[in-house]
């Protein structure tokens, strides 16, 4: 497919939907259709709206249309030795930029570099009145008006149809290696905490099957010094981080519901039945479990975090329920962007 600006067609579709009050189901390539509550509405694809609009390596900024495949963006950046530092999972070969931002999915580097939302500088979108709007921009600092661009991250398309997103990009590290240590989960968490308080060039961590993996990146000098501090053995070239990010690691090949628990990093191992994989220094924990949803939610909540049904399981209860007052302001905000409730209704919460 070629670069194409489909703004007009998309806007016309939205205007027609406004006139007929037809709910729309916004999709890119459909690689993340499994996520969240059941999609409903007339399909509206962003895939024809694609292409990198602007890329300035020395400005550290890229702007692309929402239907642009992530692969295309990453290849373009790699040619200039740059990257999307939040390392987004694709979950499909055609994954688009729009879906990445709408889900706010971020990969192994998340706790060290930031999530997708931390790199968003600006966006163009169509709101639920069919208006074309532009917020933020391509500069690093911008406090004119409310931060509507970042607000789109993780909103699952319920606040608008993203047309274009500008992202901050970063240089690729000069070098990376992975260290591996044999440790049980509790000891792994202990070590991760001690190391997190030191200025070490750790850029990813994962605990699975009794092993703790740490990715180090930066200059050769920095990596060498850090390896000595961490101990363990070096894995020179590994596809581990890619497999974890894309959930292609054997851990994920399972029939049980896959839960994502987002927790304060120092939460001790939770006593829920099932199998665990820890990432993000203990802040993101994947759980394969058939335990009742209430138990998992209660344990996550008690620890100060939340739990999401990521795959399989009861997707109609995908997200941790919001307190009533907070939900009230969510509804008002939804109203402010999409007064007729046309965009991805119910995908995030039934009330939105």
């Amino acid at each position: 497919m070629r670069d194409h600006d489909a703004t007009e067609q998309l806007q016309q579709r939205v205007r027609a939907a406004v006139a007929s009050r037809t709910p729309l189901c916004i999709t890119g390539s459909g690689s993340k259709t499994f996520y969240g509550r059941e999609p409903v509405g007339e399909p509206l694809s962003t895939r024809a709206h694609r292409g990198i609009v602007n890329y300035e390596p020395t400005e550290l900024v890229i702007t692309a249309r929402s239907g642009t495949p992530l692969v295309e963006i990453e290849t373009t950046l790699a040619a200039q030795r740059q990257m999307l530092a939040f390392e987004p999972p694709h979950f499909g070969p055609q994954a688009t930029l729009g879906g990445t931002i709408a889900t706010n999915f971020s990969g192994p580097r998340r706790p060290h570099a930031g999530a997708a939302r931390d790199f968003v500088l600006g966006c163009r979108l169509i709101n639920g009145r069919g208006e074309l709007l532009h917020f933020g921009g391509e500069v690093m600092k911008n406090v004119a008006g409310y931060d509507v661009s970042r607000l789109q991250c993780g909103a699952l398309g319920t606040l608008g149809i993203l047309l274009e997103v500008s992202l901050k990009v970063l240089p690729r590290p000069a070098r990376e290696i992975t260290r591996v240590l044999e440790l049980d989960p509790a000891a792994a968490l202990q070590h991760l905490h001690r190391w997190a308080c030191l200025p070490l060039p750790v850029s990813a961590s994962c605990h699975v099957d009794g092993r703790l993996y740490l990715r180090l990146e930066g200059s050769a000098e920095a990596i060498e010094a850090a390896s000595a501090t961490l101990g363990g053995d070096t894995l020179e070239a590994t596809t581990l981080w890619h497999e974890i990010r894309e959930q292609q690691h054997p851990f994920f090949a399972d029939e049980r519901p896959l839960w994502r628990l987002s927790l304060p990093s120092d939460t001790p191992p939770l006593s829920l039945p099932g199998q665990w994989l820890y990432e993000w220094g203990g802040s993101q924990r994947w759980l394969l479990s058939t335990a009742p949803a209430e138990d998992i939610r209660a344990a996550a909540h008690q620890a100060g975090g939340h739990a999401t049904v990521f795959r399989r399981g009861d997707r109609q209860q995908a997200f941790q329920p919001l307190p009533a007052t907070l939900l009230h302001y969510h509804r008002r905000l939804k109203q402010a962007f999409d007064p007729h409730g046309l965009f991805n209704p119910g995908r995030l919460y039934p009330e939105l």
Partner: protein
Amino acid sequence: MPNANTAAANKQELLQQLQDLLPVGAVLSEPEDLRPYECDGLSAYTRLPLAVVLPESVTQIQHILRLCTRLGVPVVARGAGTGLSGGALPHEHGLLLSLAKFNRILELDPRRRLARVEPGVRNLAISQAAEPHGLYYAPDPSSQIACTIGGNVAENSGGVHCLKYGLTVHNIQQLKIVTAEGELLTLGSTALDAPGYDLPALMTGSEGMLGIIVEVTVKLLPKPERAQVVLAAFDDVARAGRAVGEIIAAGIIPAGLEMMDRLAIQAAEDFVHAGYPRDAEAILLCELDGINAEVSALILQVREILLASGATEVRSARDEAERARFWQGRKAAFPAVGRIAPDYYCMDGTIPRKRLPEVLQGISELSREYGLAVANVFHAGDGNLHPLILYDANRPGELERTEAFGARILELCVAVGGTITGEHGVGMEKIDQMCVQFQPAELEQFHAIKRAFDPHGLLNPGKAVPTLHRCAEFGAMHVHGGRLPFPELERF
């Protein structure tokens, strides 16, 4: 509109009820007590509020807001009042809500690397409290000894280290806010994300328009093993600007990358004796941090880039004391410029870095046109400019000329694809330039967001987002013969 009698009666009722809610001494209404609150860091705008309240607890803030909602009284929050856009300028019929008494660090958790603090805690106090644990709070506005974390969140403040470590929005994890209707909400969490919309992002930079921030949980970072600053002198400002691009193109993200021009260098040098070369047209300060060996390697690389870009002199701080001095000169640049002119007006546009030479050229042409000198201080790494216009408010008409000049600078920033404010906020000051940056439908979307949190428009009314009516008036007076400012420049 209420007539004078009902307004007076309402004021009496309001004060009476506030006194019932708050401890003795927490409600100020005598003009001499209100005077210290008449302006923020933008002292050209002054106004007295109806009253000032100094609550001590979140519950008191909730009661105050419920009362104000019932009586329809506007509320303006105030941290330290160092804001530079008139954001904390009082409302003449409203309350000024000072968070000065919310000055406690509630929890410092070295394991989670988090600090939970009240909104009135000073920015620097957080890093000082974290110091014994080898941790610090990264965003470091030059005003950090005075400004509050609540104000930082409200403005999404940056500092000289935000190129690498991000702005306030990247360094906070959880907020507690009280809405106009008096509801207490917890936004974000002590995990890395929270369910629902990213309301911490929406609240950051919202200038006291969407809620009162009553608690902030910030991230703390381990102090780097070593930080070293390199100073480079240039005999041409544009060349210094290009050197910035060269450093980034080499794949280096310095911890800080700041630039000052001749007038700013000399003012800073006279003020703090930082050791800057007085005869340079521009200097760059480039800080590199990380582990020892890595920093050594980077310094060599940066030296070479700077020399190849035409630096006339490159030197590294010899010790920690010299490094501190180099930074002190930069951080004291505003007050330093304040010594060489009766008044100065600080602008805050951000531009794509590569447009720096032409924007500097444009500013110096405008400087001649308006007959007012400008000292330039930049967060060069992220394209955030702080032109400081020197003027004398006692000379009739000079303030108006200064404001007109400043407005032209901001419009120039927008015309090259930038923004009217990088970190100081819109406040009262840049409200008309919002009409240049945004289309009516976008402004209307902002108003809709505002109504979602503050249906009666009581929080900081009249600031940050102009009404369409105001823009229409501004446009009528501004667009001469249908021409936009800077027609020669390509538009984005």
